[in-house]
């Protein structure tokens, strides 16, 4: 059992990151606005014509409508994971921002929690921007699709925690290539993002069920297509458990790394 030393002051860390983000929003807004355009044209238009429709929860779904929520889930994953790996590492190691914070009444637990909440927030911002674009394509079913926003926060938290665990461990910034190659990229491809998990061999299906992106894709897809499925509820539960396990690991890992 670990005791976390947290107070509301952790939001000051979050606010610091928001302040910096606001300075560069014009650049930060570009990827989430253009990415869905690229994916939907390349896969949706290019590949969609060949694929036609897919069966989803007993109904036929256009290929573009199928991959749109997959693209959102990928954005959530990457937004949070990259924020709490590369960006957090830069703040921790190169800019010594955490050291400076620790000379104030902020605790390390608050710094790390504030960073993780910020990572999840970036996932939410990215999702909302993407939703604007995808809505123009008419691929989101409202009002259900509004739940994508809290879903992005939950998924964002899950990947933010995972990112922070990596940041606590990696010796150098280049080492992030490893979790990206072994964890992020396989999920990007095999978590039901661009084709149903059911198309995979059984062993790979089972493996996919262990991965958090599979569940996040499931959740996003069910909300985007306007139906709350059992799989979506399982996904929420899975992501919650994932956070409950990884968040303390992230804090403990960072304590071990920085308090000496």
């Amino acid at each position, binding site marked *: 059992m670990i005791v976390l030393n947290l*107070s509301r*002051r952790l939001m*000051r860390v979050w*606010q*610091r990151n928001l*302040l*910096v983000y606001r*300075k560069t929003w014009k650049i930060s807004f570009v990827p989430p606005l253009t990415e869905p355009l690229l994916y939907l044209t390349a896969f949706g238009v290019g590949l969609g014509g060949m694929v036609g429709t897919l069966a989803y929860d007993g109904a036929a779904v256009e290929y573009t409508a199928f991959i749109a929520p997959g693209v959102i889930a990928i954005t959530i994953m990457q937004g949070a994971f990259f924020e709490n790996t590369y960006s957090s590492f830069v703040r921790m190691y190169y*800019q*010594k*921002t955490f*050291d*400076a*914070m*620790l*000379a*104030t*009444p*902020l*605790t390390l637990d608050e710094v790390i929690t504030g960073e993780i909440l910020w990572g999840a927030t970036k996932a939410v911002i990215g999702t909302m921007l993407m939703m604007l674009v995808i809505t123009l394509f008419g691929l989101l079913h409202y009002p259900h699709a509004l739940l994508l926003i809290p879903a992005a926060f939950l998924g964002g938290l899950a990947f933010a925690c995972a990112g922070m665990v990596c940041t606590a461990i990696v010796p150098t910034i280049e080492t992030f290539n490893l979790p990206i190659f072994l964890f992020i990229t396989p999920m990007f491809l095999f978590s039901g993002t661009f084709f149903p998990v059911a198309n995979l061999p059984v062993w790979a299906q089972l493996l996919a069920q262990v991965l958090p992106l599979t569940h996040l894709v499931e959740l996003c897809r069910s909300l985007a297509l306007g139906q709350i499925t059992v799989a979506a509820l399982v996904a929420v539960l899975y992501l919650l458990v994932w956070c409950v396990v990884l968040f303390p690991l992230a804090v403990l890992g960072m304590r071990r790394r920085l*308090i*000496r």
Partner: protein
Amino acid sequence: MPAVIEVDNLRKSYGAFVAVDGITFAVQSGECFGLLGPNGAGKTTTIRMLYGFTPRDSGSLRLFGTPCDGAWRLLKGRIGICQQENNLDPDLTVRENLEVFAAYFNLPAAVVHERVASLLRFTALEGREQAGVRDLSGGLMRRLVLARALINEPQLLILDEPTTGLDPQSRHQLWSRLDELKGRGLTTLLTTHYMDEAQRLCDRLVIMDQGRILVEGAPRDLIRQHVGESVIEVVAACDDLRRLVQERALDYEDLGPRLVIYSGDGESLYRELLAEHCHEGCMLRPATLEDVFLRLTGRELRE
């Protein structure tokens, strides 16, 4: 009034390496106290323990009369720290650096506004509020670090090598700021590698080596005790001079061609040397803290 810092038998090891090996000292209110020592002496580790960054292995630590354990959040609100590395926020402007830091202390907005203005004035950073930290020179960065450390109006200011790498102008400017703070009664703990700086700023100091305190006292007293009033330096000592210092059992150090003689009353000896033994390259100068430091910690390189 209780001492601002009371350290008793403080220890910290990293594996087999003992960084701080049972040190004891106290810093009184209003004092400027120096921690000196060669690299690896344990100064920064000590400082980090003093503000709760590094957990100590053993020993007791009280700040403002309060035992530190479990009270760090409150205590850190009363301390200002200039860490050794410039860890200003490079993503922010000068003004934002101060404002964001103030937010970490939960200072109310009205207070922050006023304090930022007065600190910018105090550190002569007015007119640069909007400058990015990346565009500042070393001297300006250091001034901003000082301003940032004062944002919470601390009762204890901790400075870890505040003037390393600064040009003489910036150094003197910083010293005058520190003088002014001292005039207001601020207690300061300082580490530095510059002995002139320590001599100029510190009321009392300790010289540490290998995690232990070697001596403690006021700079003038330490100089008098360990070196004397003056020092004679001979650039290229000849053999009969070496014989002379040995015969008279003078207090000296032989540094190859160079000879350093610690003479209680240097004046007459100096005249004698000048007249009879060396006609040039012989110099009489007042003893400094650097002489004390080198005598106590030796001349071998540490790293």
